[in-house]
């Protein structure tokens, strides 16, 4: 078969079957090492404390303890099975070590991905994650942060498609309000865990205005105490008595469910071009957490 056909054929060969195919003869081993393994919607790799988890197509490794030589060997194996590969989303978690970063940068050579998603738990992991994001400037960047980094570090983040700050409310440090608004302008989809950002009523309204006026797609989710958002809503004339279609100042109520019995309510409002969703709202009780989502991406009539 012509070489061009063999390369076409390789796109349909499962990754696991490449292990056998490379043993057939020298020509196929060479062909495979130069081949494109095709496109996969989702795949990922996790290297934490020299324990490897990996899944690409039908080739997966779960919780394999490795030394550095074995990681080198794994990189060589990958290069023998295919040269190029592309993904919809590629998920990476790395610990903060230099060896983990070095392994991942070698392993991911010639990878292409629409989105690179990183899971980051501490400052050292963040340093590695930012280097990896820099290696794939054409990919959309997604990051799930499980701590609040120093403000000067947050300011260096590249533009993210999705930046989620998933903090423990007891230990989370707070993001300064000026940085919050800078992030709002830089990143497309933001999530702030409970306690990571605290807004006054005016700052909440400013957030809504900023999102409404932004011509780019923007979405922000903030986890906050239900009693806080109830206080802000009441200040704007919105309460459990508000009905769908009511106007409260500049807000229009799109959908209101006051809640019944043990079930908390929900509210959907519109302010200019911003739609605000407040789920699981407890109008009269304290101690509940609720998620306030503000977005200008939804086309609500």
């Amino acid at each position, binding site marked *: 078969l012509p070489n061009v*056909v063999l390369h076409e054929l390789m796109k349909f060969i499962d990754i696991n079957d490449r292990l*056998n195919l490379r043993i057939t003869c020298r020509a196929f081993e060479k062909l495979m090492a130069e081949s494109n393994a095709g496109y996969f919607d989702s795949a990922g790799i996790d290297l934490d404390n020299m324990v490897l988890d990996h899944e690409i197509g039908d080739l997966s490794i779960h919780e394999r303890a490795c030394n550095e030589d074995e990681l080198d060997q794994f990189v060589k194996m990958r290069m023998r099975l295919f040269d190029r590969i592309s993904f919809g989303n590629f998920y990476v978690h790395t610990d903060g070590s230099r060896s983990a970063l070095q392994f991942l940068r070698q392993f991911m050579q010639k990878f292409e991905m*629409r989105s690179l998603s990183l899971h980051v738990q501490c400052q050292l992991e963040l340093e590695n994650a930012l280097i990896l994001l820099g290696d794939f400037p054409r990919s959309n960047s997604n990051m799930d942060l499980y701590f609040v980094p120093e403000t000067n570090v947050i300011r260096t983040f590249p533009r993210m498609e999705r930046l989620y700050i998933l903090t423990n409310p007891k230990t989370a440090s707070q993001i300064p309000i000026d940085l919050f608004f800078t992030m709002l302008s830089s990143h497309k989809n933001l999530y702030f865990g409970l306690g990571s950002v605290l807004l006054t009523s005016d700052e909440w309204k400013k957030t809504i205005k900023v999102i409404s006026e932004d011509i780019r797609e923007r979405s922000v989710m903030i986890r906050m105490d239900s009693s806080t958002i109830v206080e802000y809503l009441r200040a704007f004339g919105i309460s459990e008595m508000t009905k769908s279609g009511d106007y409260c100042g500049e807000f229009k109520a799109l959908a209101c469910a006051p809640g019944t019995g043990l079930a908390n309510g929900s509210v959907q409002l519109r302010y200019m071009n911003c739609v605000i969703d407040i789920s699981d709202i407890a109008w009269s009780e304290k101690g509940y957490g609720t998620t306030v989502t503000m977005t200008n991406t939804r086309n609500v009539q």
Partner: protein
Amino acid sequence: RIYPLMRVTLTTSDGASVTVSRQLTKHSGFIEKAITDMAVDDNAVPLSAVAVDVDDATLKLVIEWLTEHRDDALPYPEKTDEERRADDIPAWDQAFVQKWDTKEDQQQTLYAVITAADKLDIKGLLDMTCKTLANKINGKTVEEMREILQLECDFTEEELAEIRKENAWCEN
């Protein structure tokens, strides 16, 4: 513009001539280019023959496939951003390929059609036949793969042992 009533004569590598409709040949990048190079207009029928480097028996199979797929959309969709699956071959195509399986030289027929699809630049047929061959290979042992692909092992025993040792690392 394609003139569906226009017919094209193809001469095969073993000297046969086959006349087919432009409705079929429009799916072949090679034949369409040859016709364009002749710089004909719609009054210039019949066309000069187009020589194709495909034997008569294989060309008949290609024409059978083209006849079934004459209404397929053009250009053939490139699947750069889509998971490339080998298990989505249409039922008619599967039956078309299974027909060859009754022949002793099924592998040769498949190879001949793949090569013809490549030479004639018929993307849909190349795609389908590559998937068919991949389906024959996927899940097979090394020996079975060698048999399907008609390969001879040219590794030394030591090299094979080394590759198997490397592969073992990836086996979960």
